[in-house]
Every structure is written in structure tokens, then in C-alpha cells.
């Protein structure tokens, strides 16, 4: 089986300082990758570089296309969740899920279903009234609207209680079984079954 994403020799230099160097990994369908590093070690920069927001100094990022060929551009949609969760305060919980890129062309029932899965009850509440944990749940509900090939999640386990943590672990496992992969970052290794690299 071929990996969906293959990163070779990736380096990033910013204002004459090396952020990371010689990153190599492959992401196979259904497998996870965890990037471990302390604050300021360039985890977010690495994710952004892979997704094309930043041009890499050196190295190759290869994406698999439908014809089993590797390209330096992406032909499938990915899911990205940064530190800021992309939640609009002036939209309700339901609208925050409905009016996102992933939910393009989804019907109402699917969205209700996703919200139910993560345990969000008050779907007509404005997001500005929610707690940090609840906001995080909205962003987790977004994982479920569609099956993406690769999910890039920046620090999924920060600011979560035990219940939510085990829910995420459960969801990752479930999505893995459908062939989805996760690329996640963190300060220390999590419980998720994954290949780990540290930067």
C-alpha cells in the first residue's frame, strides 16, 4: 500500500535561524503520526509547511493522487485545525458547523448527528456563550461531517477533561478504521496509537 503523504528531508529556515531540519515521514491510510516537541519548537510551522501555507526551504512534500502517483500538489481535501479553532462567536453552534468548508453540501440531519456524537445539546446557543471545552467540541464535531483522508490537528489534547480526551481517542480510532489518518502534535506522547517523531 502507498502512503497518502510522503515528506522527505524537509527543512525550514526563518530569518537565518533553522526552525526544523531533515524531517522525514510517511502517512499511510489508517495510520497516525504524532509530532512531539516543546513550545516554540516549530510544530505549527511544520504543519503549515506541509499544507502549503509556508514555502519550505528544502525538501519534498509528496501527495498521492487518484492514479497512485505522487505529486508536489494536493488533489484531495484535508482537514486542518489550528490553535485557534475557527469558531465564530456570533454564530450558533449549529451554524458554526453548517457554515464551514467541510460541511459544503451536507444535509441538516448529518450535522445534527455530528453534534450529538460529541455531546453538544444546545445547538442554537451562540458560540460566544460557550466554554473553552465546549468550543473544542464544536471543532471535534467538524471532524465527523465528512471523512477526510488526512486530519492535521494542532494539539488536540490541550485544555480537555478526561471524558473529552477519551472521546477524542475513541473517535481517532474509529476514523482510523475507515482509512483516515491523523497527523497530530503535542508536548508529550498521547495514548493514541501512532508513529512518533520529535522535533
Amino acid at each position: 500500500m502507498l502512503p497518502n503523504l510522503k515528506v522527505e528531508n524537509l527543512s525550514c529556515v526563518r530569518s537565518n535561524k533553522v526552525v526544523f531540519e531533515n524531517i522525514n515521514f510517511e502517512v499511510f491510510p489508517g495510520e497516525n503520526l504524532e509530532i512531539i516537541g516543546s513550545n516554540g519548537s516549530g510544530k505549527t510551522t511544520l504543519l503549515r509547511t506541509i499544507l502549503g501555507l509556508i514555502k519550505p526551504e528544502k525538501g519534498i512534500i509528496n501527495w498521492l493522487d487518484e492514479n497512485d502517483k505522487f505529486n508536489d500538489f494536493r488533489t484531495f481535501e484535508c482537514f486542518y485545525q489550528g490553535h485557534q479553532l475557527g469558531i465564530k462567536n456570533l454564530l450558533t453552534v449549529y451554524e458554526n458547523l453548517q457554515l464551514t468548508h467541510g460541511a459544503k453540501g451536507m444535509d441538516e440531519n448529518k450535522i445534527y448527528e455530528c453534534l450529538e456524537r460529541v455531546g453538544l445539546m444546545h445547538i442554537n446557543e451562540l458560540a460566544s456563550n460557550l466554554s473553552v471545552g465546549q468550543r473544542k467540541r464544536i471543532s471535534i464535531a467538524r471532524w465527523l461531517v465528512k471523512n477526510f483522508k488526512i486530519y492535521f490537528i494542532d494539539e488536540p489534547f490541550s485544555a480537555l477533561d478526561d471524558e473529552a480526551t477519551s472521546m477524542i481517542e475513541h473517535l481517532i480510532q474509529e476514523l482510523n478504521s475507515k482509512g483516515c489518518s491523523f497527523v497530530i502534535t503535542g508536548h508529550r506522547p498521547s495514548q493514541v496509537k501512532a508513529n512518533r517523531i520529535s522535533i
Partner: protein
Amino acid sequence: MGSPPLFYNWSSKIIPWLGLLTLLVLLIGLYWGLFLAPMDYKQGDVYRIIYIHVPSAILGESIFIFMAICGFINVIWRAKISGMLLKAAAPIGMSFTLLVLVTGSVWGKPTWGTWWVWDARLTSTLILFFIYAALIGLHSTIEDKTKADRAVSILSIVGVAIIPVIKKSVDWWQTLHQPSTFTITSSPSMSPDMYIPLLVCLIGFYLFFAYMLTLNLRNVVIERESSKNWVKHVMDQESK
């Protein structure tokens, strides 16, 4: 000119010669224009300010085009050196534009009877000056200098659209300012005695720009690469 240390060494050799040549051409051009060229029958000696005014006007605009080309290269190919060139050229272009405005109003007082008129040509040169100011201002607000270069590159591409507006503005609003002195397509309306020293001055101004640009670029390169070993090496050598 690919690597910074190479450029630095190369420019150290070229600078004295370039400086000498600039001085020579400028002196010849200005002396010829200010003392030897015949007097204008309408304006008298006042017209001689064109030997500074016209070359700086051309420089002010062509430096902007130069910057936009550098900006374009920097945005498309991410060539860092073109970003540095842009940064080095901006203050020179701004100074020339200021010189145009000042010499223009000094010239305007005796010939038109006023320091400033809201004529299209003058106004668009003033806009060019503001755009230079905006570019330099934007550069100074961004701490990461490579990023600042790219931001200014983007803005300079937009700014270059203003140059045709300046050129066309004379035709759109027929007002006080006389038509362009230089045109490539038709023969000059001035007599050759006045025209040739002007050309010499123009070449002198261009050389002056090249000289200043090299000096500025050296400073920018040293500033950017200040943490590198070769800079420390060069600094040690020069302080000896």
C-alpha cells in the same frame, strides 16, 4: 552576485571607480549645463534648473519601475537579493522625487509666479512621493526584514500602475505644465546645445543612482547577515 560575501568583496573593488566616474560625468554635465549652455530666450537663466529637475524626475520614476521589477521577481521567485535591492533603492527614489518637487517649485516661482500649482503633473509626482513614503513606512513596521521586503514588493507592483497615470495625466488635464522634455519617438524640441548637456546630466544621475544603490545594498546585506561568520570576518579586517 549570488552570494552575499561575493557581492561584498566585488563591490568593495568597484565602488571607488564607480564613484570617480559618477563625479566626473556629473561635473561635466552640470558645468556644461549651468555655465556653457546658451541662455533660453524666454526664461533666461532660470531655465538652467532643468539640468537637475529633469534628470531627477526621470530618476524618481525609473527607480520606481526598477523597484517594481525587483518586487515582481521577489514575489514570483522569492529571490531574497531582489528584495534587498528594493529596500536599498527606495530611499534613493524618494530623495529624487523630493528633489523634483523642490526644484520644480523653485522654478515655478519666477516662471509661473507661484510656488505650487495643482497641476496634474505636479500632483501625480506628489502622489509618487506619498507612495514612496507608504512603501518605506510599511517596511519599517514589519520586524522580520525578509517578510518586510516581500510586503513592500507586493505594494510596489500596485504602485507601478501609477506611473502610466502620471505620464498620461498631462494629456488628460491640459494645464500649466509644459509637455515632456524627452520623448523617444520624436526629435527634441530643444536645441542640441541645451539638449546634449541634459543627456550628460541624466547619465551622471543614473551613475549616481548605481553608486548609491551599491553602497546601500552593502549596508542592507551586512545588516541582514550580521550573525554570519563572514560578516564578523569582514568587520574585523576593516577595523584593523
